[in-house]
């Protein structure tokens, strides 16, 4: 069950969430009693090796799939989500793609366009509204996807502004080169702070998690369950290549390796 949260102390809450694929004895347990929460305005990174069910978990929170057991609650009716691929509609212009975020709530065409332009400005793509997605680079497309997700999380049907919108991100920068990724980290951090977003960010890149998160939640693999939570108290803005980030990342990587080794022979 995905329900709507009423109290103001959590943006996302998972309580003993399990997910089984298939039925009966040969069902595959993907997630095993995962509990975690994201406070309003908090940036939480979910970290794990492959097969830890981190993408499954985000799908559940986004309502794309239903948990077998346990309860998921979020602020607002519909949370925004970004995928590893930009997932833009190729038949629409960049601006129209962002405008899709306001479709479900029935804004007028003029309003949709004006608001879409605001969000494109926010990701520094103000002049690109009339282009088609395929005319942009990978990093730019992912920023359009970010603008669309932000637009959606700002729209009234999702949640009101003071609640702080929820943004789910499924390895959104995984396919980008290091330099573009660095710049997008800065972008995301700025927008997250300006807008008071609550972010649940999935990655397998430990440094990325430490660079961005207030908290890093480490998941084990097959089935996925929470191993440990690491609060990240480094001052912002951080740099992915700084010594502090590297040190903490090394510590978390060691813990991750221990987890992975349990699966070897």
């Amino acid at each position: 069950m995905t329900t709507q949260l009423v109290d103001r102390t959590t943006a996302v809450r998972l309580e003993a969430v399990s997910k089984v694929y298939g039925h009966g004895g040969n069902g595959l347990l993907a997630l095993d009693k995962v509990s975690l929460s994201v406070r309003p305005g908090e940036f939480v990174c979910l970290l794990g090796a492959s097969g830890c069910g981190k993408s499954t978990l985000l799908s559940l929170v986004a309502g794309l799939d239903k948990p077998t057991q346990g309860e998921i609650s979020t602020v607002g009716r519909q949370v925004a989500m970004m995928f590893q691929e930009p997932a833009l509609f190729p038949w629409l212009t960049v601006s129209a793609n962002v405008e899709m975020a306001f479709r479900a709530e029935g804004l007028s065409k003029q309003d949709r366009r004006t608001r879409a332009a605001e969000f494109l400005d926010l990701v520094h793509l103000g002049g690109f509204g009339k282009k088609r997605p395929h005319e942009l680079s990978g990093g730019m497309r992912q920023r359009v996807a970010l603008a669309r997700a932000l637009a959606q999380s700002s729209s009234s049907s999702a949640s009101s502004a003071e609640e702080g919108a929820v943004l789910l991100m499924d390895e959104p920068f995984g396919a980008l080169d290091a330099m573009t990724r660095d710049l997008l980290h800065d972008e995301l951090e700025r927008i997250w702070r300006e807008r008071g977003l609550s972010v649940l960010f999935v990655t397998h890149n430990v440094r990325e998690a430490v660079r961005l998160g207030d908290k890093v939640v480490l998941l084990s693999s097959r089935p996925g369950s929470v191993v440990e939570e690491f609060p990240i108290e480094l001052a912002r803005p951080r740099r992915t290549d700084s010594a502090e980030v590297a040190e903490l990342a090394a510590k978390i990587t060691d813990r991750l390796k221990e987890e992975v080794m349990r699966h070897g022979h």
Partner: protein
Amino acid sequence: MAVDTHARQIAGLDALELAGDQRAGIASRVWARVWPMLTAIALVLVAWQLVVLSGRWPEYVFAGPITTFQDLGHRLGDPEFYQAVATTMRRAVTGFALAVLVGLVVGAAVSRVKVLRAAFGALITGLQTMPSIAWFPFAILLFGLTESAITFVVILGAAPSIANGLITGVDYTPPLLLRAGHVLGFRRLQLYRHVILPASLPSFLAGLKQGWAFAWRSLMAGELLVIIAYQSSLGEQLAISRELSDSPGLIGTMIVILVIGIVIDMLFEAADSALRRRWGLNPV
């Protein structure tokens, strides 16, 4: 200050990553497409003349290109020729338009409803492979030697391809776009309207093109079989030319039928490549 530098870094990276858009001028693009066609036509004409010169058939049975085009030239000045073309084209357009309507409704219903799919999916594909001329005896029985009989068969010939194009397009909607649509809050009909239908456009267009080819074939078969008095059409002219042993007239009409088919196919081709360019499917 820091924000400003940051924005400039991003702008710089964007500029570097966008390659310049280079397309050749219109004249050279048209020429690149036209010269192979002209060469092919020339080769066909030469081969045709050689066959005629070989003397296998007398000239009054198998006319050569020169006689044929002279005859065609005369007919181009005759209003009756244009009436025949107009009748045929009117039938083609009405029949095809009705087929699109039927194909859309059937395709949409079958792609949406599981039971309908199980019941009619195989049947639609089966109908597609059925030669449309096989429908004519039945159509003539139902409607007599009327235009309705022709329209009926044209629809039956074209609609299955159109429906199948739509069904395939719906089936092959990228799952990622479906997920994105779902996350954006679209459900059921809205998801259909904003995501699934636009995503199936390329496949639907391919279905339309194939449907047109079937419609055109069915129409020609129909016009040969169902000859309506006082209504000149291309098919009727073929039949009359055969009866009068008018070889140049017969071959000339065939050329007209071929050219109309090619021109319409080129229109579909143009629509398809415009769509591909817009979507960035394969940059031309």
